[in-house]
Each structure stands twice: as C-alpha cells, then as structure tokens.
C-alpha cells in the first residue's frame, strides 16, 4: 500500500500556477529526493500533502487518510518539518519536544522526548531556548519534532539547508537508519544527496513533474548532475 499518494494536485497563487496536476505515490521503504529550482513548486506540493494548504483540485492521501477529509487522522501518521524548521523560539528544546509529544497524545511522552533527544543528538542543548541555538541545532530540532511519534510518513522540506558537511552527514545518517520503515520525501537543492540518501528522484519545475524515476536511472542520465538538472528543469 502506498503511504503517500498525490492525485492530480493543483494549486495557484493568484495568476501563478504553483502546482499543476501533480501525481505520484510513495511506498514504505522509499526515500524520494524532491528536486527542482527555487519556486518550482516543491514546497507548495509538500504543503498540499501535509494539509497546510488546500488543493484546488486533486487530493492528497497520507497513510490511507485523505488530508482534507480526515486531516487529524492523516496528520497523526505524518511527521513534517517545514522549510527553515520553524519552532517556538522562546521554549527550550526539551519543552518544545514535550509540547509536541503532549499535543500528539503520545503514551509515555517523557520517554519519547528522551529517546528523540538521544536519536537527534540534542542532549547537550536540551535545556537551551531554541532561539539561542545555531542553525545546525535548530534544523535538528525541526527534524526531532517530526520524528518524535515515529511516523509512517515523513516529509522534510530542505532538512539539510544551511548545514555544514558534518551536520549534513549526521541528518542523512539518522534518516537512513529509519528510512526502511517509512515513506519519506526530502526536498533539496543538493544533487549529491540523491546518490547518498534517496531511492527515487522526482524533479519538479514550473509546477509540473519533469522526471520520476529510480535513483539508478537518474544517475545514468549523465556524469554531471548539474547538467542533467539544468536540462530537466529548463
């Protein structure tokens, strides 16, 4: 069963067609690299899948629940980190994760917070307020709230944006560890991440899917991925 299904999703901002008739599905164990230039419709597609925006036409199904008909059910199985990993800056990392755990009504929230701090290596900053953290830690906090309930579906909008190479490696490591049990979509600008992280690649440009294929086939398109990217999104 596909854990994520996008069926003919469309969304406009005024006269601009941000997402145009986008369809794909993601099974358990798949990690989708969601590529495309800025303004291509990556974030909008993710917002439609997570129920933050309402699609004009088409539907999004998460873990078998239609996001607009049964939003709370769908969101229970969804972990989402929006672009820039927003969080309540005045809370400490521990308070914030505890809030996320309580809001989701998790059994034994204290244990989930402990395990998530451990998993995302946030222990040393657990008592700091989020606004005082460096970008690397802040991105990890965004990631942590997305996985605290061990969701079946994980949608991450540029989770490695602005991280140094070590931090990127760390995020990829955590993702790889859990990917086999989940359906994951990761948007990124970094083409190298495709080879290291993803099992499948979807390229989107001007609101339309330009390519949707396995990592192997994508990597066969050419030596120079930047060149491939330019051709696909032109």
């Amino acid at each position: 069963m596909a854990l994520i299904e996008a069926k003919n999703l469309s969304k406009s901002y005024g006269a601009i067609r941000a997402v145009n008739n986008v369809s794909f599905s993601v099974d358990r164990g798949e990690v989708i690299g969601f590529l495309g230039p800025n303004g291509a419709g990556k974030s909008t597609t993710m917002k439609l899948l997570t129920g933050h925006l309402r699609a004009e036409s088409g539907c999004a199904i998460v873990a078998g629940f239609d996001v607009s008909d049964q939003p709370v059910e769908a969101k229970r199985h969804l972990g989402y980190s929006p672009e820039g990993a927003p969080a309540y800056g005045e809370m400490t990392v521990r308070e914030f994760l505890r809030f996320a755990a309580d809001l989701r009504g998790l059994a034994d929230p204290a244990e989930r917070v402990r395990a998530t701090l451990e998993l995302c290596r946030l222990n040393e900053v657990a008592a700091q307020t989020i606004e005082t953290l460096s970008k690397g830690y802040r991105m990890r906090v965004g990631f942590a709230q997305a996985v605290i309930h061990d969701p079946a579906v994980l949608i991450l909008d540029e989770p490695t944006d602005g991280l140094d190479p070590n931090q990127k490696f760390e995020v990829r490591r955590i993702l790889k560890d859990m990917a086999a049990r989940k359906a994951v979509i990761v948007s990124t600008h970094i083409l190298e991440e495709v080879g290291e992280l993803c099992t499948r690649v979807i390229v989107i440009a001007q609101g339309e899917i330009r390519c949707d294929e396995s990592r192997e086939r994508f990597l066969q398109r050419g030596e120079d991925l930047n060149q491939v990217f330019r051709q696909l999104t032109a």
Partner: protein
Amino acid sequence: MSSPSENPAPKSAGLSAFGAILRREFAGYFRTPLAYVFLAVFNAFAVSLAFFVGNMYEAGVASLDRFFLYHPWLWAFLAPAAGARLWAEERRQGTIELLLTWPVTVWQAALGKFLAAWLFLACALLMTLPVAFTVGWLGDPDWGVILAGYAGSLLCAGACLGVAAVASALTRSQVIAFVTGFLACFILVLVGYGVFDELFAGMLPSGMVDEIRRLGLWRNLEPFTLGLFDLRPAVYFVTVAFSGLGLSTIIIERR
C-alpha cells in the same frame, strides 16, 4: 520503535491537543518579562484610576462601582495587548505551519489559545482583590455585588479578547494586531457614551441610535457593578467573545 500506523493514538487525542495548547500558551505569557509588566500596569491603572480619577475614597461609599467604571477602558487597551500574540506570533515565527500540520483542528487550537489568554487576564483581575478587601476593611460592602462586578469585568475582558483574536488572526505583526484590536475595542467603549450619536442620528432612526448605545462596553458592565441581575449584558459579552473566537478560527482556516 514501532510504527504508529499499527499503534493509533488514544481516542482522547483531541482533548490532549487542546490541553497541551492551553498549557503552552498560558505558560508562554510568563516566559517573557512582558507578563509581569502587563500585570503591574494593569494593577497600577486599575487602582489609580479608581482612587485619583474616580475619587473612590472621597466618595465614602463602601462599593466598587467606581473601581469597575474604568475597566472597559483598561480591557480595551490591555486585552489587545495580551491577545496580539495569539496568531500574529505564530505567523511571524512560521510555527503556524507546524501547529496546523500537527493532529489538532483549528478550532481546538483557537479555543486553547483564547482560554489561555482569558485565564491570564483573569490573573490580572484577581490581583486587584486587595482593593475589594480594603473596602471591606473600611466599610461594610455588599460582597455579592462585588462578586458580580468581578464576574462582569471578566466577561468584559473576554469580549475585548474576542476582538483582539480577530485582529491577531489578520496579521503577522503583533504591533498591527495590537493597534487594530485596541481601536476596535476603543470604539466599543465610546459607543456606550454616545460619542457617535450625532453621526448616527443623521443616518438612522432614533430608536436605532439608542440600540447602538447599548452595544457599549460600560452599558453592559454597569448592571453587574450595581448588582442588578440581567441576562442580556452577560449574553452580550459572551456573544462578542465567541463571535471573535469563531471569526478568528475561520480566518485562520482560510489562510
């Protein structure tokens, strides 16, 4: 860790989401010095307006009606100050995208936020209790009337907060939310004093002008402070409060 697909959350999850938001929002007021500034300002003005402007002491009457007289003004200013952050801050920080992709309905989130803010205003009001005790020490007031006055003031605060919630839902700036919320509440105060009567008199039948006056905050608070039991002012305050709450929810849902 096992997949939550096989372990669905408990059935009371809606309630836990509401409770978590209520607790977070209420505690949020005390995370910054703003809360203490707010409480101090509210108390300073509540007491000094009553004694220095209302001449409560010189009047020599053991009652709090001169104290409550200024509460519509106070709430018109301070409820929007406390309510400005409700949604504007979520928008500015981008956390609204987080909150609304967590398993919580918009109205649960809106109600949790609203009640937390109302509870905070209630704390400010409770801190004025020494005024009541002073009156009790100096004279022999009717405690039922004083209790009714406090209840009325709290309802009045809720009405102003309803207006503030709408203002906050419309913008990502707390300053704009505060100013527009304050202006709207200010108009509700002035309406009761007939400030706009001449303006309306040219446009509306005179009966209507009187009815509009009834929409003023003080008009509805006054019966409480006199110990007159009347359901209409209570219904008025609750209606304004929950219309504001409902409207802010719709605005956020349609974002």
